[in-house]
């Protein structure tokens, strides 16, 4: 049975460990900022190419940073053999997936909350934060839903750091396309209705992959 109290305890434990170790947040944040700075040097963004390039720059940065974070989602459990301790608990194993998903999502959103103002400042943009935040939330949820499952899968392998992006990127193509397209609408200042089909795609992807991952997680973590 999926108990909300247990879910809260699992997420709180993950966030407390991250707050103390700062293993993932710092490295992911610094990485995201560095990528933005490199893109800023690499591309000469002008008014005529800004709308085409800026959304791609933003989401390539987020996705690379997310891969870094997602690769460490099960690190605390994997490195110290604690995953068995969690599997011993009388909880639905899908609850472990949901808790890890929420923890990863919180981490990604914190990084994005810092990276988006940096992006706006570096590229001299004037963007409405609320629509951009909504796109970031839905896109990050989609990416984290698949990434958390594959992170658990890759945790059992020797080549986990290399395996995760290979598994993750192909299946995340719809998320990447939808987030870039929706962000293009925001950057261009077009009517918000133009982004709706992409947001609907994101909502559908999120619901589908959170559901599937929740159901198959037990098979992934079994011996």
């Amino acid at each position, binding site marked *: *049975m999926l*108990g909300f*109290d*247990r879910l809260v*305890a*699992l997420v709180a*434990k993950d966030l*407390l*460990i991250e707050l*103390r*170790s700062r293993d993932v947040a710092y490295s992911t944040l610094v990485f995201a900022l560095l990528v933005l700075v490199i893109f800023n040097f690499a591309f000469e963004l002008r008014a005529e190419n800004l709308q085409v390039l800026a959304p791609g720059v933003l989401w390539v940065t987020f996705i690379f940073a997310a891969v870094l974070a997602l690769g460490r989602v099960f690190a*605390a459990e994997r490195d*110290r*053999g*604690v995953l*068995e*301790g*969690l*599997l*011993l*608990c*009388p*909880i*639905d194993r899908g609850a472990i997936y949901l808790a890890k998903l929420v923890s990863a999502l919180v981490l990604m959103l914190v990084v994005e909350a810092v990276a988006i103002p940096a992006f706006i400042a570096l590229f001299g943009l004037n963007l409405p934060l609320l629509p951009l935040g909504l796109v970031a939330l839905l896109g990050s949820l989609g990416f984290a839903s698949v990434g958390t499952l594959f992170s658990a899968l890759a945790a059992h392998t020797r080549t986990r750091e290399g395996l995760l992006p290979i598994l993750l990127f192909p299946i995340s193509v719809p998320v990447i396309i939808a987030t870039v397209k929706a962000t293009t609408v925001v950057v261009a200042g077009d009517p918000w209705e133009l982004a709706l089909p992409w947001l609907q795609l994101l909502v559908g992807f999120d619901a589908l992959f959170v559901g599937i991952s929740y159901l198959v997680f037990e098979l992934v973590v*079994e*011996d």
Partner: protein
Amino acid sequence: MKATVRVEGLEKRYGLTPALRGVSFELTPGEVCVLLGPNGSGKTTLLKVLATLVRPDRGVVEVGGLDLRRHGRLVRGIIGFSGHQTYLYEELTVAENLRFYGRMYRVADLDRRIREVAEVFGLNDRLNTRVRALSRGFQQRTALARALLHDPPVLLLDEPTTGLDVEGRCRLAALLGELRARGRTVLFSSHAFELERAWADRALVLSAGRLVFDGPASDLPANVLNLGGAHARV
């Protein structure tokens, strides 16, 4: 008396290598049983099967009258398991680890229960110490406290004395006696049978995945693990 653990014809393979071959036994409430055997004889696999961490290939396994395959989550609620790993988060303190696991098991009056198990294992002074700062012995005590936290009817301990000093062993011995008196079932594996012989009522000896002895611990010869080397015969 109705068995709390029933294993019948249990088989488990890792690839082509058999780990358990037709193992059958029953444990009743109040029984403290030691599991012996040379390295690779299947002790850890057997304990992990009972703890629902490893899926059996064949056979019947019931804990508390519940079939392991069909009621895994319910079974996990009535067993306590301590393995080779401590299952503790190093960034958290002893109390935070116990509180976290207590919430997973929905332990009632959790703060009181944490104080109780800390008292049993002499952890009171270290409740606010991060696990990474503890010695191996105190990490093991915390791991045992974690397994005991929800007062499970069935306790499975895989080499529980690993890293424990004399005081830790004495505390564990006293605990096993108390659990026996309270009708709890305990199955623990050991490599130091001579030291721990007095703790158990009964002994199971595995050799190459087969159960080769099942009887009173006092009936076992002192050199049980040396008989036949890796293929102990009793």
